């Protein structure tokens, strides 16, 4: 997954929590940065920024726990879209 994607995700999370800096592997829910309500913000962000609707089978908190996990979700969905059109 590209560094750009990770940077975009990191920027969003840090924009929503201006006082916090996180690494790409930090579990944002476990370290107390985010609450479960923030998960919905993440879903809206991912869908609008990367242009796909999170499918039901990917609708798991684990996919939103860290920059890395979200980037992996984006990569999987991009591959699906690319596969679908190609």
């Amino acid at each position, binding site marked *: 997954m590209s560094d750009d994607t990770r940077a975009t995700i990191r920027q969003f999370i840090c924009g929503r929590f201006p006082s916090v800096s996180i690494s790409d592997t930090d579990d944002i829910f476990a370290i107390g940065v985010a609450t479960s309500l923030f998960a*919905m913000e993440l879903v*809206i*962000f991912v869908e609008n920024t990367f242009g796909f609707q999170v499918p039901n089978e990917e*609708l798991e908190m684990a996919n939103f726990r860290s920059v890395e996990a979200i980037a992996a979700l984006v990569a999987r969905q991009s591959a699906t879209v690319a596969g679908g059109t190609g």
Partner: protein
Amino acid sequence: MTPERSAFRAFVDETVAPRADEFERDERIPDDVYKAVGAHGWWGAVVPASAGGTGFDMRTLAALHEEIGRGCSSLRSLLTVHTMGAYALYRWGSAAAREQWLPDVVTGAARMAFCLTEPQAGSDATMVATTATPDGSDFVLDGVKRWITGGQVADLFLVFARTPRGPAAFLVDARNPGVSRSPISNVLGTRASMLAEVRLTGCRVPGTALVGAAGAGMLVATGALDLGRLSVAAGSCGIIDACLDATVAHTAGRVQGGGLLRDHQLVRAKVSDMLTDLYAARELVSRAARLKDAGDPETINATWVAKYHASTAAMRAATDAVQLHGALGCADGHPVNRYFRDAKVMEIIEGSTQIQQVTIAEHAYRRVPAANASGGAR
């Protein structure tokens, strides 16, 4: 005023407001009103036209819910839960469920209810005790849901339950033999919203009834409740508007203390607070709706803020409206008596006032490091 809002307003003035006290007395919304709302496509307002709905944007949806709420909070509550259910079905329902239900849900031929609350699970949804036990490709649901708006008449329930993989949402056909319901009547406010307790006993549903995924119940609930909160915020604006209408009409005609009530400064202070609260609440609702339309994640917090302000302002307006009507405002069957009782309900549903405060403050504290955030100091 937009042409859409004018149409909503005309409908409410003609079909809803004049009969709202009758609905309240009968504790039900009659079928002809359901059908009239359906004829306009408003039960399916949140579902895109491409999926058979009316496809309103969020600002138009909010205007609809405000106008309906101005006429009758019970009808608005029924519209709220139906809209939440329709959204979840459209957004996260299985292909089979959408095919089976969506055509009737968008017309209102199938009425939806939202079943989260339980005797031991109110503000804290993590306390939900209803279970959904996997059995082959099916799930078997057991539990009790209470305070379910429209529960007496719903055809389809959106039910939240625990699964071994975490919380999940399910569509439950009201004809399922594992479903029983008992009406809850004589509630303080929204008396025509046909509340029920819904009991699920060995209630077997197919795997296609799962909405979202097992473990994603909180996300589905959050998404649906976010929409419900916008609706309740808008409906609260409607209550303020109705209080203002009633209050200026009454005080402009009633003579006490040597003059019309409208000429007393203390009366004018209350009226000016109502109008200011109405404009502020509408702006907050409009902001939340605009952010939703733009796909901006800030909409989640904006909706909490809008609901907090609008519902508490509705309670203030209704309190003042009753006060300025004197004994008349306390009389059974007087609209401001109803607004007062309905406004209190707005402070409890879709997150109570205290839960709004806790959540909004939590958002404000994002500006400083979380107490236990190990990443904060980096």
